[in-house]
């Protein structure tokens, strides 16, 4: 199998030794991302789509838009639904069946970043208040698990949204009549998830799959276009000190700029 499930104790020691010199097994320094490649509009049949390669991680996000009912407490807003699937296709560690806690956490963290930063102008997706609104489905599809699925997925979701086209329509009574042409989805913020791992006392950015296996804790900070924090998620059974959390929030803010530039330039 090309996928090594277990890291030996020796490998662990080597990784720690390297970290003590500020380096990582793949040559990166502690706060660097792996190489990122973004392809957009990869699924013509979807309203929007993007594929993100982050090192060995390969994530595809597809956007479909449907017409449905609004939630009763926000009758004037469209609906956002984020779903993630960790299909066994992408890793022998993924189980078949309905989304497990990891897939659900992944989807919810991506969802929170988009929702809390108000990335989609949901008010513009209302068709008939209280009755008909557009429903935006973002489906995240992991095609190869190479570590740090959250950042890759959040990036793919944002790129797919920036790339989403909606048909033009007019209302005939309460029915939608589809008109010629397309308009972009109203996207007004660009949240970027930045994830750190804690290996022993070292904090590393963008953990790879190998690093995830010796990592004690994980912290994701999602930063919006105005450097505000819009979502946080600590994961895995370890801890952080207050100082570590403060440092991470600061680095996340800086790093988010890089990624945002990249995604915006790809989606122009």
């Amino acid at each position, binding site marked *: 199998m090309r996928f090594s499930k277990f890291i030996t104790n020796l490998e662990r020691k080597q990784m720690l030794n390297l970290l003590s010199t500020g380096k990582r097994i793949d040559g990166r320094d502690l706060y660097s991302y792996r190489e990122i490649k973004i392809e957009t509009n990869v699924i013509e049949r979807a309203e929007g789509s993007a594929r993100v390669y982050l090192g060995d991680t390969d994530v595809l996000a597809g956007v479909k838009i449907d017409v449905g009912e609004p939630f009763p407490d926000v009758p004037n807003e469209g609906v956002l639904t984020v779903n993630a699937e960790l299909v066994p296709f992408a890793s022998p560690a993924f189980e078949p069946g309905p989304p497990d806690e990891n897939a659900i956490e992944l989807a919810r963290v991506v969802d929170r970043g988009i929702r809390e930063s108000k990335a989609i102008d949901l008010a513009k997706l209302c068709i008939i208040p209280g009755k008909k609104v557009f429903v935006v489905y973002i489906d995240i599809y992991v095609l190869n698990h190479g570590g740090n699925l959250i950042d890759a997925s959040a990036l793919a979701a944002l790129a797919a949204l920036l790339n989403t086209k909606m048909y033009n329509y007019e209302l005939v009574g309460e029915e939608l009549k589809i008109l010629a042409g397309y308009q972009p989805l109203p996207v007004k913020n660009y949240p970027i998830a930045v994830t750190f791992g804690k290996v022993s006392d070292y904090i590393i950015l963008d953990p790879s799959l190998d690093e995830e296996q010796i990592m004690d804790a994980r912290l994701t900070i999602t930063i919006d276009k105005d450097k505000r924090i819009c979502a946080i998620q600590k994961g895995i059974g370890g801890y952080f000190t207050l100082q570590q959390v403060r440092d991470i929030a600061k680095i996340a*803010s800086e790093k988010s700029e890089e990624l945002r530039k990249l995604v915006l330039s790809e989606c122009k």
Partner: protein
Amino acid sequence: MEKSEKPLITEDGLRTDGRGPRDLRPVKIEVGVVKNADGSAYIEHGKNKILAAVYGPSEVHPRHFALQDRALLRCKYHMAPFSVQDRKSPAPSRREIELSKVIREALEPSLFLEYYPRTSIDIFIEVLQADGGTRCASITAASIALADAGIPMRDMVVACAAGKVDGHIVLDLNDIEDKNGEADMPLAMMPNKGLITLLQMDGLVTQEEFKQMLELAMEGCNLIYQIQKKALKSTFIKTVEEV
């Protein structure tokens, strides 16, 4: 339900339930309330009413889930159908599945799981009534239930949220504040060394506000820790009397 139009913070700086920005809601803890369990606790935190029960260390079912080098820690956070305004279907929601995971991960660093290889420790949390901040109250209660079960620990875990409401940084958001405020940030920690074991946030805050919220939430945790300790002490006394 339409969003509330009333201010969440009055001109005097008071909140909808009369608290000041840095005030906790009343917290009441009872230990050893579920007879069948190996350890248990009941918490009332504001109008939250939550039970936590711990079973284990015991044989793992199904057996192939057992871990060779440590105990398998499992956690199920579950809301009673009548715990919220609109009846909740008893089937676990995506929210409950995520919360079960983050609560387990918040408690895990406090435990010496390696002392009990090939066993399971099961934490069951039942939210009987929900009022904002159930995950924090659940963690506080579950940590006591673990202590009550005699599971060896590095430290207790205690949790409290801070957030932003009507522009103010406030401690321990209730349901209305959680739903209508700008940000909610639950935090759990092991209080002795101030190690953070859960941190989440929904909302939109600046770096500066985030720092204030971090400190306030940790303050809140320390306040609850005092109550937690008292609850545990009274049990230990009870235990001694029983002998």
